């Protein structure tokens, strides 16, 4: 009988493993189903033993171990104590004596580990301790292969205990897992570490060459030690959800800190431990197999925290010892690329966990620390340059350099400007190294990229974004030693400007040769980096904050003025020198150093313009142009027209040049706007440069007190004039909208709530700006034969250009200007539904129209009065309706048609979502006319109604559209469940159908949205006693749907909690249905014992839970359900 089963399985295994040309599909399926059946066997212990003993087929051996595993999980509670222990003895015996392949061995080890863990829950780990004792004996005394096996057993045990949240599949609720882990942690985990350390102390005594088995054993010991050091010592107070996040982080390789209680001090604080671990690393660092694990242990030891370090004295003693052994290592070796990241991580962890202790260390140690860290930083910086130049994929040094900078940031913050001189030297060394690494020889050591004609994909990751953190850190260093770095920078810049001017002079007389062109590229790269570094030193990033002049720079400027190293006169002269185009400003050496750098930047701008005006624009670098725009934006935000009462002290020179009512400020504003204008004029074909130019423009006009100044200038009028005379369609897409956004944002600054005349000034400005646009729109649409010429390219170009401008206007709306701007746009918006119908075959225009409405809803709607809102709703709905009408029931042969519809519908959903937000976020003070009460949600739902027929399941497969669609549904449902209940039946059906589809067809976030939707609706129905409404009937089937999905593992385990609360809400509504559902589930079980267990599980599920749909019983049910699911999944064989 057994032999027959074995041979049947072996045959099946042979078929499964056979190459595809030898067996048919049917044969393969049949063989697979034999194994599927086999997995369902009850009490398979005897047969599995037989198989393990007698079969030689590895696949069959593996499968039988797998069957053992699931049977043990399922039937553990019913197994006799003696059977369990004999089985465990048998398996242990089996793997120590039999020679099986690794994958079978590992499976059996896992079964063993699971058994040990389950048993430890019943006896508090008594037996586990015994087993560990045996294993330790094995490792110490047995032959080499047994030693390795012993290590493997320990590794598997650790794995079984390490995670709790994801281990529910072994049939225990999470709480029990967690308790088991904590119990293990407190007893045997420490013992394992002690054992490993004891052995490692032996290991370290031997010298190379090492035997293969020696390396293997050391590797295992290090891995186990590493696991203990990276163990997630989670506090039991945290809720499950947080622990789950914690554990997933742990799995993703970012190890948690080594947080230990003082019960560990005996082993961890033993003064021999750190020297031992460093010594081992020193010995194994040349072995790729071992070095990583050993280094990881050191990194973890640098993050020691918790009550183990109970006093300052203990902490300082520990970090002192750590640093001494660490310095000993790094001062004796040259750090290799592969170890650089680990070494830098040690530094980073030390600065995170011991930052407050470092200043308390003896001064000599602190000095060594600064010196060694600086040396490492510079070494990594050099390495990073090489990696970049050689185009290496693994950027070890580069990452290590970044990590060092992070560590430095903590140090600088901790010392908070109370540095000794030694530190200034470190800062200078690092800055010099960084600058050097980014300059071409002879000043620097930047490697010249050999691949000249390399194609560079634009944007996304330009240097500003790629090296953002690095540059910010360098900026911080620079502000520590401004007196050193600023003169270095302006000197470098001025040299390069002269060189550039020489080059341009040559170019005007003759063509460049290849090497000259290459050296020009090098020059641009130098300039690019000097400007980037200067920008980061002079200004700080100000996302979401008021940009300010950094205090260190202000002080430096003040100090220069006080010492008469700079004077207002010479500084101002530098600014005017640009105007007069004089070669060198008078008394340039007395110019403030900040302004001296800015002078160079502005000089570069003029050079660009001059080159463009003599047709040499093609020799300028758009990359440098972009960087200049970026610098000006950053600098103007902080330094131009600063708000003086924000500052404790002011440098008279800086304020005298860029402050309120100064000639200098006027000049700079004019200069910047003129530069914006000239870029738009000269560099129409450089999309990225133009984007950065428009960014500069929009960012400075959106600062109100600057904008007031800017809007009245001649240069602003010139810019507007240039825009109004541009040929439609001559700029890259979206540039026009950027310009218009800037124009209208500038206008809003004219408004002053304390001055009633200001509104009319603002309106006049808008009139000047907007009337020509309005006129163009009228003329375009009003031409007699519009219906015949609308498709001509000239007409279309005009239309696109205008719509772009309108979108810009919508985007630039601010509180004071929104109403005025809306009154300008409203008549245009009301024409758009007709226009969309006319252009329905021209997707570019259709999408611009939809986008325009979306942007109006996003940026204007929240400021609009009810009356104006209603006007917007009407135009928007008419347009959505027109869109739906044009596209309903349409079949097309076009390839990508689905993709195009997807883009359109995305815009419509955006629009509806933005409209809906009016109900949550309304800044209009004028509630005014009460007769108008159209709620935004009605509008949204109405609009949804129109496009519902276009939403197909294929379209929902576009992830972003899918997310958007379900987000909108949940949002409406959250705010207005009653609106959903009252939907027309047809729409309701479609909606619920999409919820049902959402439960199974897409990712977990969509399932979450659908579950939220169901829960919200069911709760609403229950609370409002609407059980007999058609809506309630429509929701009814979901109880069974959800129950089936959870029981058959089709709902992700992370979502079980959400699913349970949805089921609870449905159960409250449909209690009879629930009872029938449970009955039929139980009756459908063929096996009476399973049926009985299922019935019991269902009983426990609802015990002590009131069906009131309130919060407390809901939470109670959720907890019950967690246990229910684990339990039922254990014995119900639905997979």
């Amino acid at each position, binding site marked *: 009988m057994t032999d027959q089963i074995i041979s049947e399985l072996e045959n099946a295994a042979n078929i499964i493993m056979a190459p595809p040309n030898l067996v048919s599909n049917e044969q393969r399926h049949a063989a697979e189903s034999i194994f599927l059946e086999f997995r369902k066997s009850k009490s398979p212990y005897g047969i599995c033993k037989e198989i393990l003993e007698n079969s030689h087929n590895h696949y069959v051996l593996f499968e039988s171990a797998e069957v053992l595993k699931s049977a043990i999980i399922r039937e553990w509670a019913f197994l006799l104590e003696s059977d369990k222990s004999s089985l465990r003895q048998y398996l242990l015996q089996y793997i120590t004596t039999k020679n099986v392949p690794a994958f079978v061995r590992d499976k059996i080890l896992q079964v063993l580990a699971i058994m040990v863990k389950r048993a430890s829950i019943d006896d508090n780990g008594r037996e586990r301790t015994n087993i560990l004792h045996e294993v330790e004996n094995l490792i110490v005394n047995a032959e080499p292969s047994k030693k390795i096996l012993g290590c493997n057993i320990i590794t598997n045990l650790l794995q079984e205990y390490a995670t709790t949240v994801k281990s529910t599949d072994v049939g225990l609720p999470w709480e029990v897992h967690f308790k088991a882990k904590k119990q293990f942690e407190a007893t045997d985990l420490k013992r394992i570490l002690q054992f490993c350390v004891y052995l490692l102390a032996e290991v370290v005594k031997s010298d190379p060459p090492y035997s293969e088995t020696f390396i293997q054993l050391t590797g295992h010991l290090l891995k186990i030690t590493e696991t203990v050091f990276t163990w997630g010592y989670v506090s039991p107070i945290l809720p499950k959800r947080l622990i789950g996040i914690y554990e997933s982080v742990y799995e993703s390789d970012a190890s948690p800190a080594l947080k230990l209680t003082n019960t560990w001090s005996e082993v961890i604080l033993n003064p021999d431990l750190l020297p031992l671990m460093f010594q081992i690393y020193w010995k194994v660092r040349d072995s790729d197999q071992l070095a990583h694990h050993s280094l990881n242990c050191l990194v973890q030891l640098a993050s020691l925290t918790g009550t183990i370090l109970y006093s300052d004295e203990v902490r300082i003693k520990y970090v002192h010892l750590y640093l001494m052994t660490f310095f000993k290592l790094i001062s004796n070796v040259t750090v290799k690329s592969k170890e650089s990241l680990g070494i830098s991580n040690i530094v980073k962890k030390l600065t995170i966990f011991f930052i407050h202790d470092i200043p308390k260390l003896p001064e000599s140690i602190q000095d060594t620390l600064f010196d060694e860290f600086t040396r490492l930083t510079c070494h990594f910086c050099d390495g990073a340059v090489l990696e970049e130049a050689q185009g290496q994929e693994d950027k070890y040094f580069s990452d290590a350099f970044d990590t060092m900078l992070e560590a430095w940031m903590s140090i600088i913050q901790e010392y908070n400007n109370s540095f000794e001189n030694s530190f200034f030297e470190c800062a200078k060394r690092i800055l010099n190294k960084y600058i050097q690494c980014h300059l071409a020889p002879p000043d620097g050591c930047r490697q010249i990229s050999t691949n000249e004609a390399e194609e560079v994909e634009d944007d996304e990751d330009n240097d500003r974004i790629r090296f953002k953190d690095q540059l910010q850190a360098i900026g911080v260093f620079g502000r520590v030693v401004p007196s050193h770095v600023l003169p270095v920078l302006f000197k470098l810049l001025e040299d390069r400007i002269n060189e550039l001017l020489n080059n341009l002079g040559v170019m005007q007389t003759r063509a460049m040769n290849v090497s000259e062109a290459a050296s020009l590229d090098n020059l641009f790269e130098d300039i690019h980096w000097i400007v980037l570094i200067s920008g980061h030193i002079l200004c700080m990033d100000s996302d979401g904050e008021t940009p300010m002049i950094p205090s260190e720079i202000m002080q430096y400027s003040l100090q220069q003025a006080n010492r008469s190293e700079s004077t207002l006169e010479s500084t101002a002269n530098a600014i005017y020198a640009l105007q007069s185009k004089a070669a060198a400003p008078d008394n340039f050496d007395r110019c403030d150093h900040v302004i001296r750098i800015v002078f160079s930047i502005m000089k570069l701008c003029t050079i660009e313009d001059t080159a463009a005006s003599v047709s040499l624009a093609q020799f300028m670098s758009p990359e440098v142009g972009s960087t200049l725009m970026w610098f000006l934006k950053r600098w103007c935000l902080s330094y131009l027209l600063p708000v003086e009462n924000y500052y404790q002290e002011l440098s008279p020179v800086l304020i005298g040049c860029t402050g309120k009512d100064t000639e200098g400020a006027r000049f700079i504003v004019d200069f910047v706007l003129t530069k914006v204008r000239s870029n738009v004029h000269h560099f129409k074909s450089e999309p990225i440069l133009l984007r950065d130019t428009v960014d500069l423009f929009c960012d400075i006009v959106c600062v109100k007190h600057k904008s007031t100044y800017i809007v009245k200038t001649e240069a602003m009028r010139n810019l507007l004039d240039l825009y109004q005379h541009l040929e439609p369609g001559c700029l890259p897409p979206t540039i026009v909208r950027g310009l218009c956004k800037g124009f209208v944002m500038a206008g809003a600054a004219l408004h002053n709530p304390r001055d009633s005349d200001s509104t009319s000034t603002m309106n006049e400005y808008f009139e000047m700006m907007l009337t020509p646009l309005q006129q163009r729109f009228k003329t375009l649409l009003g031409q007699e034969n519009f219906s015949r010429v609308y498709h001509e390219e000239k007409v279309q170009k005009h239309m696109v250009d205008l719509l772009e401008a309108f979108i810009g206007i919508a985007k630039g709306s601010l509180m004071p200007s929104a109403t005025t701007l809306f009154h300008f746009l409203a008549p245009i918006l009301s024409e758009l539904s007709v226009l969309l119908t006319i252009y329905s075959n021209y997707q570019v225009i259709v999408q611009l129209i939809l986008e325009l409405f979306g942007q109006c809803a996003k940026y204007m709607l929240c400021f609009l009065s009810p009356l104006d809102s209603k006007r917007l709703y009407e135009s928007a709905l008419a347009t959505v309706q027109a869109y739906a009408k044009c596209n309903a029931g349409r*079949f097309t042969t076009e390839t990508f048609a689905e993709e195009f519809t997807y883009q359109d519908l995305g815009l419509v959903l955006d629009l509806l979502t933005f409209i809906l937000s009016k109900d949550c976020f309304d800044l209009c003070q004028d509630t005014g006319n009460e007769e108008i009460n159209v709620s935004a949600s009605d509008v949204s739902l109405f609009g949804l109604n129109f496009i519902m027929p276009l939403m197909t399941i294929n379209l929902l497969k576009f992830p972003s559209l899918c997310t958007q669609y379900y987000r909108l549904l949940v949002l409406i449902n959250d705010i207005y469940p009653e609106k959903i209940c009252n939907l027309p039946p047809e729409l309701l059906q479609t909606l619920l159908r999409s919820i049902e589809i959402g439960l199974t067809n897409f990712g977990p976030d969509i399932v979450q949205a659908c579950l939220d939707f169901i829960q919200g609706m069911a709760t609403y129905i229950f609370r409002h006693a609407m059980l007999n409404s058609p809506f309630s009937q429509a929701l009814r089937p979901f109880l069974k749907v959800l129950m089936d999905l959870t029981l058959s593992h089709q709902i992700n385990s992370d979502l079980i909690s959400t699913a349970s609360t949805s089921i609870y809400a449905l159960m409250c509504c449909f209690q009879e249905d629930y009872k029938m559902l449970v009955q039929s589930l139980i009756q459908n079980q063929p096996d009476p014992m399973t049926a009985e267990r299922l019935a019991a599980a269902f009983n426990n599920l609802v015990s002590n839970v009131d069906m009131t749909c309130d919060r407390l019983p809901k939470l109670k049910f959720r907890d019950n359900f967690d246990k229910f699911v684990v339990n039922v999944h254990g014995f119900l064989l639905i997979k």
Partner: protein
Amino acid sequence: MADIEDTHFETGDSGASATFPMQCSALRKNGFVMLKARPCKIVEMSTSKTGKHGHAKVHLVGIDIFSGKKYEDICPSTHNMDVPHVKREDYQLTDISDDGYLSLMSDNGELREDLKIPDGEVGAQLRSDHDAGKDILCTVLKSCGEEVVIAVKTNTALDK
């Protein structure tokens, strides 16, 4: 004045010039461009450059508006590209002849019978809807001398 311009454009439409030039950087996604001498709709557009300090180039991916075939091109952003005149017009279907020609009526009542029923699913849909006596609109795509029905739409209750 408007009339004069009008006639000028009429001739443009009748085949004298099937395309017009446009600076590469001003093209936009979902717009049209000639790639490998075929009228294409731009489905992807990105910029790149030769070397870090080089000038922008535009990388275009387009699909032939008639055949659906994919074409790619890369071109300095300062260059002019040819853009096809593309006209997409809706006609009312009045009849289908035995030899597969469609009788179509434009908005202003002009009749034409020079287009064949399209192949594939759209054609089948067209025929069955016509047989069922439904109101049908046909979208005719015209560019570079080619003309074909690319979409059909039955008028539903929503329209009335």
